[in-house]
C-alpha cells in the first residue's frame, strides 16, 4: 500500500504513507526534494519544470479521483484533524471535559474557542495520529458520553449566546456493549433534536470522514459545509459492500454507488457548500487548508450572526424539513464523470434561491 520511504528527502515523509494512486506524484516530489538539497543555484532551471510537472499531475490526478479514492484521501493519516484546526484557527481554546452523567470521552473534544476575535463553542471528533493517541480516542468513534458532553456544552453555549462550530471526522459512533448499555441511540437522537432547535448560529463542517449517525450526532446546523475530499455516508463503503455483495473488498463499488462525495452531496442539498482543498488535497498543505476553512467559517458565522434569530431558526427548519424533497435523480455514476469540484461559491448562491 505505502510508497517506500525515501532515504534522502524529508518532504515525502511528511506526507506519510502514500496512497496507491499518488505514487507517481510522490516520485516527483522526492526528486524535487533531492534537487532542492543541492546548494547549486544553477539547478533552478531543472527544478521549475519538475514542479510544474508535479502540479499538473496533481491537478490531473485529484481532478479525477474515484469516489473510493476520495474515501482514501479523507482517511489519509496526514490529513489535518481537529487538533490542527484548533492550533491553526484559534487564538484561544479552553477545552471543557465531561458529560456530567457518566464520564469523559476523548473521541469528541469540546471547548470555548476564539477565532479571529469571535467567541464560539468549538467541537469535533478526535481521531489521533499516533497509535497510542488513536487508541485513546477510539479512532474517532465516540461513545454516548461524547455526544452528551457535546449536548451539555451546546446548552451552555445557547445560554450565553455563543455560536457553535462542529468539525466532523468520524468513521461512525462506537458500536460496543458499553455504548449500547448507555444508550448510544438515545444520545445521538437527543443531539440531533437539540441541534434542530438550538437558538445560536450553528455551522457544521465535515473535514474528513462523515460516518453516518456518529457524524450527524454533531452534524445538524444552519450551515453544513464539506471539505472537497471529505466523504459523508449513511454506511461505510466496506459495510455497504459486505451487506450488498457479502464482500467487503468491493468497497470501491460501494463508494461509487453511495454517492458520498462532496460534489454529489451538494447536488443532493445534503451540504450547502464545498470548501476547496489545496492542490493535491489537505494533507499536502495543512496550513493552507486551515486558513481556507477559517476564512470560510468566519464568513458564515458573520452572516448567521447578522440574521434575525427567529428568521435564522425558521430557515434552518425549512432546510431540514425539505431534506430529500424536490430533487431530480443524479446523473448516472459513469466512470467518465470525474469527481470535479463544482465552483463552490457560485453553487452555494444558486442553492440559496
Amino acid at each position, binding site marked *: 500500500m505505502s510508497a517506500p520511504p525515501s532515504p534522502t528527502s524529508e518532504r515525502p515523509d511528511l506526507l506519510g504513507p502514500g496512497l496507491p494512486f499518488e505514487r507517481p506524484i510522490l516520485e516527483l516530489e522526492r526528486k524535487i526534494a533531492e534537487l532542492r538539497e543541492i546548494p547549486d543555484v544553477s539547478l533552478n532551471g531543472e527544478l521549475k519544470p519538475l514542479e510544474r510537472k508535479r502540479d499538473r499531475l496533481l491537478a490531473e490526478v485529484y481532478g479525477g479521483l474515484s469516489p473510493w479514492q476520495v474515501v482514501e484521501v479523507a482517511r489519509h493519516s496526514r490529513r489535518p484533524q481537529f487538533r490542527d484546526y484548533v492550533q491553526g484557527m484559534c487564538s484561544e481554546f479552553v477545552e471543557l471535559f465531561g458529560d456530567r452523567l457518566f464520564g469523559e470521552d476523548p473521541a469528541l473534544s469540546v471547548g470555548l474557542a476564539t477565532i479571529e476575535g469571535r467567541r464560539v463553542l468549538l467541537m469535533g471528533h478526535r481521531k489521533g495520529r499516533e497509535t497510542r493517541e488513536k487508541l485513546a480516542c477510539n479512532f474517532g468513534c465516540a461513545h454516548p458520553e461524547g455526544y452528551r458532553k457535546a449536548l451539555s456544552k451546546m446548552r451552555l453555549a445557547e445560554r450565553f449566546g455563543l455560536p457553535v462550530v462542529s468539525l466532523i471526522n468520524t468513521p461512525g*459512533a*462506537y*458500536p*460496543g*456493549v458499553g*455504548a*449500547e*448499555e*448507555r*444508550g*448510544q*441511540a*438515545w444520545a*445521538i*437522537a*437527543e443531539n*440531533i*433534536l*437539540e441541534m*434542530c*432547535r438550538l437558538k445560536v448560529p450553528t455551522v457544521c463542517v465535515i473535514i474528513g470522514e462523515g460516518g*453516518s*449517525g456518529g457524524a*450527524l*450526532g454533531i*452534524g*445538524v446546523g444552519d450551515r453544513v459545509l464539506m471539505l472537497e475530499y471529505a466523504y*459523508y*455516508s*449513511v*454506511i461505510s463503503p466496506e*459495510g*455497504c459492500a459486505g*451487506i*450488498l*455483495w457479502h464482500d467487503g473488498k468491493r468497497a470501491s*463499488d460501494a463508494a*461509487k*454507488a*453511495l*454517492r*458520498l462525495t462532496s460534489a454529489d*452531496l451538494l447536488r*443532493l442539498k*445534503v451540504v450547502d457548500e464545498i470548501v476547496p482543498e489545496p492542490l493535491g488535497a489537505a494533507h499536502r498543505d495543512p496550513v493552507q487548508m486551515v486558513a481556507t476553512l477559517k476564512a470560510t467559517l468566519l464568513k458564515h458565522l458573520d452572516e448567521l450572526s447578522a440574521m434575525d434569530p427567529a428568521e435564522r431558526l425558521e430557515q434552518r*427548519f425549512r432546510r*431540514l*424539513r*425539505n*431534506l*430529500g*424533497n424536490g*430533487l*431530480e*435523480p*443524479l*446523473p*448516472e*455514476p459513469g466512470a467518465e464523470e470525474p469527481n470535479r469540484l463544482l465552483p463552490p461559491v457560485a453553487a452555494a448562491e444558486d442553492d440559496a434561491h
Partner: protein
Amino acid sequence: MAFFRKKKEIPVGLWMKCPSCGKMAFTKTVEENLHVCPDCDHHMKVNGPTRLRQLLDDRKYEAIGEDLEPRDLLRFKEDVGTYEDKLKKSRLKAGVTEAVTVGRGHLEGIAVTVAAMDFSFRGGSMGVVVGERIARGAEDALARRVPFLVVATSGGARMQEGALSLMQMAKTSAMIARLREEGIPYLVVLADPCTGGVSASFAAQGDVTFAEPGALIGFAGPRVIQNTIKAQLPEGFQRAEFLLAKGYVDRVVHRRDLKKELATVLRYLEPRARPQEAVG
C-alpha cells in the same frame, strides 16, 4: 393437534409457523391474538396497516401520505436489478407502498395521528419517503393539536438512498422538536427489531416510550457489535427488558395491553392549546 401430521397438505395461509417456538397455529387465531404466538407469547412482526387497525377504534384510519412513493434518486448501482425493481418487488411482497403507514384515527376515543412502520418492506429501512411520511404525520398531529404516535421497527437507514436516508434522521427530528416546543404529546412504541438510523432519531425521542416484550432495540446491530468486540454478547443484550433495566424505555408492554396503556398515558398528556386559543 392431530392436524400437525397433515400440515404439508394444508393450504398456505391457513396455518402459520411461529418464528420463535416453531409451533404451527391457525392463522386466524394468531391474527385474533394480535399476531402474538398463542403458545410462546412471541410478538410477531406486524405490517403497518394491520398495526393501525389493531390500535385504532373500529379498526379504521384515514391514510396520510400514501401517494408518496420512493424514487431512485442516486441511481444506485447494484449487481442485479435496479433499486426501482427492488421497490416494485417489495411492494408486491409486503402489500404496502413503503415501510411506514400513517393514518388519523381514534384510540379509545382520543383523536390521534399514528405512524406504524413495517419490517416486511425492505427491513423497515428509512429512506426519503419514510422520513417524509413520518414528518407529515407529525405535521398533521401538530395542525390538529392531537397526540402523535409512532410504532417503530426498522433495520436502519436505507442504503440505496445514501446520505439522503441519513438526512431523514434530521428531518424527522426537526418535526419532533416542533412537537416538543408546541406541547404536542409524542409516544413511541418500539417493536422488534429497531436499530440504526431510526433508533437514533425519532424512535428515541418519545415523551413516553414503550417497548414490546423481547424486542431487539439498539443503535448498532448485534452482529456489528460482535465483530467489533470479538466476544459473545451477554444474554438478553439489547432486548426490551434489558433496555428497561438500563433506563431507556418507560414500560415494556404486552401487545394485548398496548392500546389500553397508550390511552391511559394519553389521558395524562393533553396537547397544549394553540397560543391564540389560550388567550382569554
